[in-house]
């Protein structure tokens, strides 16, 4: 009997979902889906990002009544960092008038890139995803502000060069052995002869994230002068612990911006002291915008985040992502004169928004990040990054903004974009005036 009921219920539910009507929203709301991952192996990064992203929009709704008079409707859909669930979330939410997607996963981003021009919904992969998507003429619908992985890597290499010189040095590159980790390798190959360093790669499989013994034996064998990490999730604390174990000098170990969050270093604690990481969004709560978030959202109990979480690296990054989205919405509203905008308008907004020093101050984020503005040609914005260092219990910013080596990165990006487009037939490009 029970079994029949289960089957009956399932059949009924299936039948129902065919005809389930999609909820329709009033004209002047802004529907933004948030593909979050609060579960799964990378939940440690996904949770604060999703919180920061949501809280900023909630704050705008509470404080300003939305953007330009239009309320923001944020819908979270759990992907568990799984590409299949990501596609499911996309299909489930795109019909509701989604303005843009922020997948926070390279795998999901790659799946959405070809869908974006068809469904006319832009993809903003902020500091991840396909580096080549930075070429606006080839990828009209994809953005990766404020910088691509390649730009970031070039900034890190410059930082090393400025701190003791890079010529003749050996750089160890430890990376998660998936698309994300391998992405900067072409840049290393290109820059090694130009800048005169030698590099050696240490891949770490997803399954080996927490068992890196052999990897670090290899590091010992190779004796690199610097280590650069392109790690994620549980791989980062394990790598830092192993580095401490072989007594690798921590201040010569630099992670990218996904390898330097509070969640990565808190399990390590004091042994990680001196570890550095790239970042593009400010740390801490000493910004008026963050104070507003605390006042209107966190203290009011409208957030999933604890008060302590606000101001941490990944929280602020999620928040910064929301800021870019909000600025793009504003720009789109100004350009079209409409309150409620569409994905197409949003694309325009992402190409025209201006977040300069003055505007940063206006939104309450002075000194939070490098100024950045949208453009048709350049979808990464060539944002500058800074280096932060772990002091045993918190992150502190230790460098000025380091701009990427645009003249090196740009041709590489152009080549990669050409290659991508050449494999696709009927790919839609645009010409920028």
């Amino acid at each position: 009997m029970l079994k029949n009921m289960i089957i009956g219920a399932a059949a009924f539910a299936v039948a129902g979902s065919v005809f389930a009507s999609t909820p329709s929203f009033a004209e002047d709301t802004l529907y933004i889906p948030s593909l979050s991952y609060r579960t799964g192996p990378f939940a440690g990064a996904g949770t604060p990002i999703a919180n920061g992203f949501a809280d900023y929009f909630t704050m705008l709704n509470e404080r300003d009544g939305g953007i330009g008079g239009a309320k923001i409707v944020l819908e979270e859909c759990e992907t568990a960092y799984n590409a299949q669930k990501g596609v499911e979330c996309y299909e489930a939410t795109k019909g509701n008038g989604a303005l843009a997607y922020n997948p926070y996963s390279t795998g999901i981003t790659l799946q959405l890139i070809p869908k974006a021009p068809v469904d006319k919904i832009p993809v903003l992969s902020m500091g991840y995803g396909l580096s080549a998507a930075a070429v606006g003429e080839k990828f009209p619908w994809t953005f990766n502000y404020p910088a691509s992985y390649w730009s970031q890597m070039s900034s890190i290499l410059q930082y090393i060069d400025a701190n003791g010189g890079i010529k003749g040095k050996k750089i160890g590159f430890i990376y998660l052995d998936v698309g994300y980790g391998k992405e900067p390798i072409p840049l290393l190959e290109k820059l090694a002869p130009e800048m005169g360093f030698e590099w050696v790669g240490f891949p770490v499989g997803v399954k080996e994230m927490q068992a890196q013994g052999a990897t670090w034996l290899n590091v010992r064998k190779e004796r690199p002068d610097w280590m650069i990490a392109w790690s994620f999730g549980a791989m980062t604390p394990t790598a830092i612990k192993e580095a401490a174990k072989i007594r690798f000098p921590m201040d010569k170990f630099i992670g990218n911006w996904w390898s330097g969050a509070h969640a990565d270093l808190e399990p390590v604690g004091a042994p990680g002291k001196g570890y550095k990481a790239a970042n593009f969004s400010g740390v801490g709560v000493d910004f008026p915008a963050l104070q507003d978030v605390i006042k209107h959202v966190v203290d009011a109990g409208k957030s999933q985040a604890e008060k302590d979480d606000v101001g941490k690296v990944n929280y602020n990054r999620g928040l910064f992502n929301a800021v870019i989205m909000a600025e793009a919405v504003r720009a789109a509203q100004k350009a079209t004169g409409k309150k409620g905008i569409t994905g197409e308008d949003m694309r325009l907004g992402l190409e025209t928004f201006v977040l300069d020093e003055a505007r940063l101050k206006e939104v309450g984020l002075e000194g939070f990040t490098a100024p950045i503005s949208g453009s048709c040609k350049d979808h990464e914005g060539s944002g500058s990054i800074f280096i932060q260092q772990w002091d045993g219990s918190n992150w502190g910013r230790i460098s000025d903004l380091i701009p990427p080596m645009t003249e090196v990165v740009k041709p590489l990006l152009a080549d990669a974009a050409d290659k991508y487009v050449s494999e696709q037939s009927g790919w839609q490009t645009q010409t920028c005036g």
Partner: protein
Amino acid sequence: MELLSKIFIEPFETMYALPDLFLQALWEGFVSGTLYSLIALGFVLIFKASGVFNFAQGIMVVFAALVLVGIHALGVPAYIAVLLTLGVMALLAMTVVRFVMKPLVNQPDIILFMSTIGITFILIAGGQLIFGGEPKAMITTELGLPTGSSDWEVGGGLVIFQHIDIAAAIIAALLIAGLALFFNKTKTGRALRAVADDHQAALSVGISLERIWVIVWFAAGVVALTAGILWAAKSDVSFALQVIALKALPVLVLGGFTSIPGAIIGGLIIGFGEKLFDLYWGSPILGGGTESWFAFIIALIFLLYRPEGLFGEKHIERI
């Protein structure tokens, strides 16, 4: 020709040139080998007593560590938290036996195996629902586990022994010895071996299957907790940890599913093997990252020669 040299000559040159590295690799292999043995032991215990291939052993490792850290986070002192965690594991053992194992008595192996995968799902999702999915630090110092390291100078280099690794090896060895004693010398242990030999014969002489199974699942829980603490001390407590438990499978294949000494020796072979292989052959020739499959391929090759493992029981098939 170059490849042959890379396979047969260069690795040994490197070993000779950097003896400290070689010794370090042996030590690392030994430490991870003992931990693999420990996880494999959890599998063997349950397999011996109930014929169940317990796939949930891996997630039990994570779950136990999570419960421990979670209870400690509530402000409970570390050692009491350990006791409470043991209580939770006992409860888990009873629940599993009562609601899963007992109703499934006499079902084919694959059904029992699948049911443990069902348990895995429940534990992963339940653990995340209760404790949250973000990684947590293991309470190493609170538990009185040592930190720091000692050096040993060899051939112009250093071999570094982490104290936590030494402690891990000792604890694992003690636990294994303790379990071996328990199963060989106590009355319960004898009952357990009787169950392992023949369920029905054991039942007919008055041994309670359910009681034995609870004991075995609890013992597997204790093993899981220990492995969880020791491994998480090396990285952190996160759900990615369960994948490591899959490493226990090739260990079991090498050692045989039913043999405790097999689990120990198999673990050590895999531990030594994968470190040395990746360091001297995997990285230079194949570009590294070989640790993920090396153990499995070794197991596969080994199986072709000895299908029962090193210490497994020989099958005699009849029609």
